[in-house]
């Protein structure tokens, strides 16, 4: 019992310190240059000394007597010209290391990245899931755990603690115990750690701004005026292709692709309670103020600032419009236009449109208090790692997680070999280069290989920051640094309310997400005078379909745990 209380306290204090780090940037500093202090979340934590753990008798010097075999999920992103996700330079490195260090044979199982939740559901339901599974969707894990399909990791990580020091050091109690239930102490999943919790950034075409003599927008109104200017000057900007002009590009996932606009309409003084109660939807559909963001998007759409039928577009179509140079602005993951080397959006623009053509990050969605708030995840909230009950080798699987959490291994997996994937600069930082063949990383910083770590993480934070900007050849490091600065400006990380199981959420995730996306698409494309009706009807349906039940249960759960308190410590 004592141990539990202690670990809770520790976790609590971590959350607070995390929140403190996150709000540092609220001052609203802008422009190029990376504030070094911001990346301090990736230091090793080592805050678990109070937890007494054991070690397994099965191991001698960390090795099994007989060779064990485990299967590990790896995302298949289907990149053009990528390497085989289950067989490349990095998988070989892991396989060799695991066999040498622990006598464990590793086999990788590819799961398509963009349908991972469906796919892992299918594998779990069929009883053929890999021994080590990961998904971004905690409700999926919870649902399977409720059915008895997931191994409880609580005792496993403590009893074998001395065999998995790197994992404990890297995740710390924060991420190790993030999903631990306050009610019954079960632990179904370990939260992979974000070395970099940058989320979404707004991008605009620098060369279009220059051509029209505009400044980079700094407010919502200026952003709107800029979009109008793009639309009205399509002939100047696109010539014969003027009809293809898309001032603001968006996909069917509006809640993500207009997130900064949407979130800027939320009351900046929202209580932790209200934020938690509505926090089941990661697109913040039911949070206060979101309807007004919908109204703005509806206006944009009806004024021809968005593509007609944008909700039909596949994301690959949208990418090709961006690459071809028809798109003026968009919001997406903070490093989106730099991803994929020679096939990145900015590299394509430079090639197809001209050397000046590129997307640059801007910060222009101010909340009512004038700050550029970026709601983001804490170091948790990345991929959740879990073992299905079909896993016969939980210890070997834990050793795998430990092995890939070793800082030396993380660094190799992210940086590869000198001369092949990177060169070392005079200041010690890495410059990354476009790799070929089996050395190609299919994901940025190879995050698909380092499943406990998301984001570049080198031996020191300073080195990481310096190297991060060099991580996207052939894109300009200054552009990356600027995007990183914007992404860090006004970060507001999520706090952990420590309430895990909400019964009303079980099995509702996908259905509600689909309803939300429908509601967004219908509301944004409605005629202006019908916006209110469409929005309200759809919201009503969403709540009736299960949203309200979740809100009610979350409110109750909060009040049961925290009483009248509306803010977490």
């Amino acid at each position, binding site marked *: 019992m004592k141990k539990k209380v202690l670990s809770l306290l520790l976790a609590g204090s971590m959350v607070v310190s995390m929140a403190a780090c996150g709000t540092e940037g609220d001052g609203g500093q802008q422009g190029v240059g990376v504030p070094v202090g911001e990346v301090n979340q990736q230091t090793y934590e080592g805050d678990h000394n109070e937890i007494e753990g054991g070690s397994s008798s099965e191991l001698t010097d960390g090795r099994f007597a007989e060779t064990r075999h485990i299967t590990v999920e790896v995302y298949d992103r289907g990149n053009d010209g990528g390497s085989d996700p289950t067989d490349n330079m990095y998988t070989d490195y892991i396989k060799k290391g695991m066999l040498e260090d622990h006598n464990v044979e590793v086999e990788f199982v590819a799961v398509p990245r963009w349908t991972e939740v469906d796919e892992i559901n299918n594998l779990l*339901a069929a009883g053929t899931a890999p021994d080590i599974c990961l998904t971004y969707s905690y409700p999926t894990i919870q649902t399977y755990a409720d*059915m*008895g399909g997931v191994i409880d990791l609580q005792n496993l990580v403590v009893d074998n603690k001395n065999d998995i020091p790197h994992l404990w050091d890297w995740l710390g109690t924060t991420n190790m115990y993030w999903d631990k239930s306050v009610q019954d102490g079960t632990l179904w999943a370990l939260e992979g750690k974000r070395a970099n919790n940058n989320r979404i950034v707004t991008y605009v075409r620098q060369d279009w701004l220059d051509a029209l003599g505009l400044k980079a927008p700094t407010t919502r109104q200026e952003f709107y005026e800029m979009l109008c200017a793009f639309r009205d000057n399509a002939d100047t900007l696109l010539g014969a292709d003027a009809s293809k002009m898309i001032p603001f590009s968006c996909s069917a996932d509006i809640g993500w692709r207009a997130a900064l606009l949407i979130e800027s309409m939320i009351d900046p003084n929202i209580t932790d309670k209200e934020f938690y109660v509505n926090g089941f939807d990661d697109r913040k559909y039911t949070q206060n103020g979101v309807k007004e963001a919908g109204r703005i998007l509806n206006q944009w759409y009806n004024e021809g600032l968005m593509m007609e039928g944008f909700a*039909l577009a596949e994301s690959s179509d949208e990418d090709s419009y961006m690459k071809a140079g028809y798109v003026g602005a968009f919001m997406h993951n903070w490093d989106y236009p730099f991803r994929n080397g020679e096939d990145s959006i900015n590299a394509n623009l430079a090639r197809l449109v001209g050397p000046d053509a590129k997307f640059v990050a801007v910060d222009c969605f101010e909340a009512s208090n004038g700050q550029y708030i970026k709601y983001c995840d804490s170091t948790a909230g990345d991929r959740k790692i879990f073992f299905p009950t079909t896993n016969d080798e939980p210890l070997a699987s834990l050793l795998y997680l430990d092995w890939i959490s070793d800082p030396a291994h993380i660094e190799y997996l992210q940086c590869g070999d000198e001369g092949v994937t990177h060169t070392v600069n005079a200041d010690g930082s890495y410059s990354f280069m476009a790799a070929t063949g089996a050395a190609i990383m299919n994901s940025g910083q190879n995050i698909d290989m380092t499943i406990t770590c998301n984001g570049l993480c080198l031996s020191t934070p300073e080195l990481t920051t310096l190297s991060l900007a060099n991580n996207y050849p052939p894109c300009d490091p200054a552009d990356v640094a600027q995007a990183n600065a914007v992404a860090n400006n006004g970060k507001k990380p999520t706090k952990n309310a420590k309430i895990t199981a909400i019964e009303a959420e079980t099995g509702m995730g996908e259905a509600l997400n689909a309803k939300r*996306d429908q509601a*967004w698409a*219908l509301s944004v494309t409605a005629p202006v005078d019908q916006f209110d009706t469409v929005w309200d009807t759809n919201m009503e349906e969403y709540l009736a379909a299960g949203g309200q039940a979740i809100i009610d249960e979350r409110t109750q759960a909060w009040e049961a745990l925290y009483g009248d308190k509306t803010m977490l410590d």
Partner: protein
Amino acid sequence: MAKENEEMNSSGAGSSVFEKPERAKAAKQPVSVYIKRYWQLYLLLLIPMVYFAVFKYSPMYYVLIAFKKYSIVQTVAQMPWAKNHGFQYFIQAFKNKDFIYALRNTIFLNLLDIILGFPVPIIFALLLNELRFKFFKKSVQTIAYMPHFLSWVIIYGLALQLFAPANGLINILIKNLGGQTVHFLDDANTWVKTYIGLGIWQSFGWNSIIYLAAISGISPELYEAASVDGAGRFQKMWHITLPGIRPTIVVLLILALGNVLGSGFDRPFALQNNLVMKNAEVISTFVYKYGIKGLQFSLTTAVGLFQSVANVIFLLLANWFSRNMGERGIM
């Protein structure tokens, strides 16, 4: 179904004259004698029987999931019964607005398919039958049934290129001719027309094959006699060809009606999108969304069971109706 197969097999084997006397003696001889004598045929019969037992009958046991609280680690027998005497999930389904929409859309889209789509292959077969130039007839037929071999995902890809509002070929053409954008894919009502239209386009050629086969079975003497009596082309079509294929039409119509509540998965799934969901969600996609993606296996098994039972009722009704109208029916 197994029984049907058995019948088909035995009648296929016994289409010869000498089976009947054997049958007459059946009462006296033990079964083993038959098995010995025709063992190859029985062996062949085993294949479809095993298929149906394994893939059609044994899964039926798991229908019980509809009445139980599903668990991934328990066997069906171990799972606890659902609330409300096991009918919890049926009640839940019918209280779910999405399910009601899906039910409505399934019936509506399938009826439209039958009303608009069913006559097309018949008309096509009749027209094709009138063609006298062999090569032309064969080419038209081949081209017409080619779309049948395209998957719906590919058809949707084509449709998107053609019908997308901003940059679809058809809409660009319409706009250049001075018209207004037609929202083929992103307006809920127009979408229904696109859905039905694409369905007809994809399947009419293929479906006409069976009618062409039936037409070729009609005795040429009838046509010759009619010609002698001075019947024209249209009269021959109306009085000989159509009545000649009427049994085929009735059987296919019964089968189609038996499927009013069923629906393929890939066609609605590939064609639907967020903007048209209120008309496009059908039972199969509902089951996929709530069951496979949302992990509510009991709920969706209940929905599936309801769908199957309703389908059987439709089938029996249609069959009964056609028999009362003096047709043969299918059982």
